């Protein structure tokens, strides 16, 4: 049992009592590792009241019978003078400024032992604000290896706050942290011992012509330097040698960009080939489910809903789980290892060319997984106009929902071909789709930054954190989180759309239809009527009314186009391999004049449409939330649709002129 609880049986018995602890600290100080170690999987991603911005919170059960601590993980921040939205949120929670949250009972300040001076700056500000503070000193093992010897009791004494060394990866020091956190939270006597503010007396000495905020800031640092000088003895200056050696390659003039390109190519190739096996397994599973549902359930509308609507609809999307897991895995690894900051460092000059910030690179790269977290990640960008420009172009990054569309088109019309003998045509096409999106993003960003969102280039000051081996637990947790969000979507939005679509295709019922004449039913249905309605507009792009139905449904979420095509082509009923049968059905589909509906050119035109159009309800919703108006999301949907239409038109008509069919 926890030592503190042993001494305070009353507290232990009163297990209903809970209190709140906020985790604050510099970016890369090890906050998330500590959060995961404390809460395990008992956490959720919730929204901040009012501003609907994501925050992570969880429960830390110190003792099975004891009180539970409500832990809030805050965005990383360097100081309380916030310069970005992320930092503003963190500050508001810490100081209890936000109207609906009260000040946390305890602030656990996470301090990176290998970077004491800078990390202590935030602490000095929090001490000034009269927060109840416990310092969790992380990376102590790393500091020791770098030759830093930290006298922790002395540090605690000088700071006048308890300091606990923790190694989150190995769950070391957590019990002691629990004891101290409870002492500080419960014992008002301890909390009332206000820490000294040694730097305040030094204020006078620091004034040498600088502005007042500067002298205050310098005074804090002088105080911190004194504290660190008294508590840390540095034997050798060996810190971050390995990081320097890695940087020599990774941000090298020639090798650097080459490595960046190879990493991206590797990620895309991996997603395209490694994910195949599990994807086929999931596909088979849903087919087996469909077949057994058909045999065991009585024939009728309900069975049809399950077999033709829900199973192919949900299955067609769940199938892409392996690809999404791989993509998120790579993004998390690149982020946790410290590579992302290097990528931003190398890309800043290019990004600035279109008026954007190097920091926009990370949100844009995340948007390759999904624009929703990408758009939320723009909060680290200080300038509102830059942030808005980044949000506007984020959906051009080919997200994981487009991947199934590309994959299907390639499997159906470009499979088995290779370029230069060893790279598959599919991989080249996919890479081209990604590049096309990037190209349009660059163009639009440039135009926006020179018209609607004209503003001077904001500052670019970014830490290049030391390289670290990613924490397995962190990677695992972030995967679980994102997979959860994806499955939730498959279980709600996609399920609902599948049912609606099925109904639109199944009604109104055309009487006297037998198995093989399903297409008449589809043609006469509400969906068929809608498809016919828009056919004149999309015929110049090479699309017929069946593809039109797919396009309409894809504006809810891109990947639904596949389940829609599955329903339209009645592929779920074939009983055997579902995507195989969809591919066959697409290859065999004929226009009224007998020519093929689908040609490689039509497939390419469709892929390009999907690169550029903003077909995603979730993205629209998150942009509405983040910009706090309907103007920007509507503008985004409109201009992207226009670009998609024109580009598909040029592709299809141009291709025909060049003699392709």
């Amino acid at each position, binding site marked *: 049992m926890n030592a503190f609880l042993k001494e305070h049986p009353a507290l232990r018995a009163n297990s209903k009592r809970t209190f709140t602890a906020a985790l604050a600290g510099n970016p890369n100080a090890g906050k998330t590792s500590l959060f995961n170690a404390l809460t395990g999987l008992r956490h959720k991603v919730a929204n901040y009241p009012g501003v609907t911005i994501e925050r992570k919170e969880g429960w830390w059960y110190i003792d099975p019978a004891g009180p539970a601590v409500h832990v809030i993980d805050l965005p990383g921040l360097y100081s309380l003078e916030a*310069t970005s939205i992320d930092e503003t949120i963190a500050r508001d929670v810490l100081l209890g400024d936000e109207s609906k949250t009260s000040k946390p009972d305890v602030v656990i300040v996470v301090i990176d032992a290998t970077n004491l001076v*800078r990390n202590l*700056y935030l602490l000095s500000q929090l001490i000034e604000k009269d927060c109840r503070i416990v310092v969790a000193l992380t990376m102590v093992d790393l500091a020791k290896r770098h030759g830093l010897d930290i006298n922790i009791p002395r540090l605690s004494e000088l700071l006048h706050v308890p300091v606990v060394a923790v190694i989150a990866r190995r769950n070391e020091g957590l019990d002691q942290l629990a004891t101290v956190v409870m002492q500080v939270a419960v014992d008002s006597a301890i909390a009332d011992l206000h820490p000294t503010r040694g730097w305040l007396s030094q204020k006078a000495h620091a004034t040498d012509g*600088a*502005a007042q905020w500067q002298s205050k*800031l310098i005074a804090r640092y002088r105080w911190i330097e004194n504290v660190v000088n008294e508590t840390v003895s540095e034997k050798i200056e060996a810190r971050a040698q390995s990081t320097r050696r890695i940087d020599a390659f990774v941000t090298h003039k020639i090798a*650097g960009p080459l490595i960046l390109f190879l990493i991206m190519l590797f990620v895309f190739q991996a997603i395209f080939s490694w994910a195949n096996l599990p994807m086929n397994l999931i596909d088979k599973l849903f087919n087996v489910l469909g077949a057994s549902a058909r045999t065991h359930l009585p024939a009728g509308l309900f069975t049809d809903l399950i077999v033709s609507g829900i199973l192919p609809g949900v299955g067609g999307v769940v199938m892409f789980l392996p690809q999404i897991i791989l993509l998120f895995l790579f993004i998390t690894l690149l982020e946790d290892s410290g590579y992302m900051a290097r990528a931003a460092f190398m890309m800043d*000059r290019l990004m600035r060319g279109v008026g954007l910030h190097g920091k926009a690179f990370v949100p844009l790269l995340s948007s390759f997984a999904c624009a929703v977290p990408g758009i939320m990640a723009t909060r680290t960008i200080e300038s509102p106009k830059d942030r808005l420009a980044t949000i506007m172009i984020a959906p051009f990054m080919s997200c994981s929902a487009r991947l199934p569309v590309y994959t299907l088109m390639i499997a159906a019309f470009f499979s088995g071909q290779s370029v230069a003998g060893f790279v598959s045509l599919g991989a080249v096409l996919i890479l081209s789709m990604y590049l096309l999106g990037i190209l349009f993003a660059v163009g639009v960003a440039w135009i926006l930054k020179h018209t609607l969102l004209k503003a001077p280039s904001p500052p670019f000051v970014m*830490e290049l954190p030391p390289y670290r081996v990613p924490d397995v637990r962190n990677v695992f947790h972030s995967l679980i989180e994102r997979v959860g969000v994806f499955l939730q979507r498959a279980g709600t939005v996609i399920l609902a759309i599948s049912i609606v679509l099925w109904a639109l295709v199944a009604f109104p019922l055309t009487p006297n239809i037998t198995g093989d004449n399903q297409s008449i039913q589809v043609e006469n249905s509400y969906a068929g009527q809608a498809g016919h309605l828009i056919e004149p507009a999309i015929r110049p792009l090479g699309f017929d009314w069946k593809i039109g139905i797919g396009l309409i449904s894809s504006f809810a979420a891109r990947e639904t186009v596949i389940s829609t095509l599955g329903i339209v082509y009645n592929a779920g009923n074939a009983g055997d391999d579902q995507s195989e049968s969809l591919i066959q059905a697409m290859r065999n589909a004929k226009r009224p004049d007998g020519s093929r509906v689908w040609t490689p050119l039509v497939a390419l035109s469709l892929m390009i449409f999907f690169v550029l159009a903003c077909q995603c309800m979730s993205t629209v919703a998150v942009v509405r939330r983040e910009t706090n108006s309907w103007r920007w999301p509507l503008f985004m949907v409109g201009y992207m649709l226009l670009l998609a239409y024109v580009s598909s038109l040029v592709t299809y008509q141009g291709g025909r002129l060049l003699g392709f069919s």
Partner: protein
Amino acid sequence: MTLDATPFGTPARVVSVTGDGPIALRLMQMGVIPGVSVSVVKSAPLGDPIQIRVRDFDLALRRLEARAITVAFDHD
């Protein structure tokens, strides 16, 4: 001399950080204050931004922003 003109790998001392804007604030929050030792490590492949080392950690900043930092060499 300002930091953007400092040769790579040569340690210097910060004399002042000029300006009242967000750049000066951000730099000073991160510990770039008068008296501290700083050196330019290298530049990004396209020549800008630059990587500087201060207080044992690395920062990336643009040359334009590095101009806000005035430095002196110890032998001056």
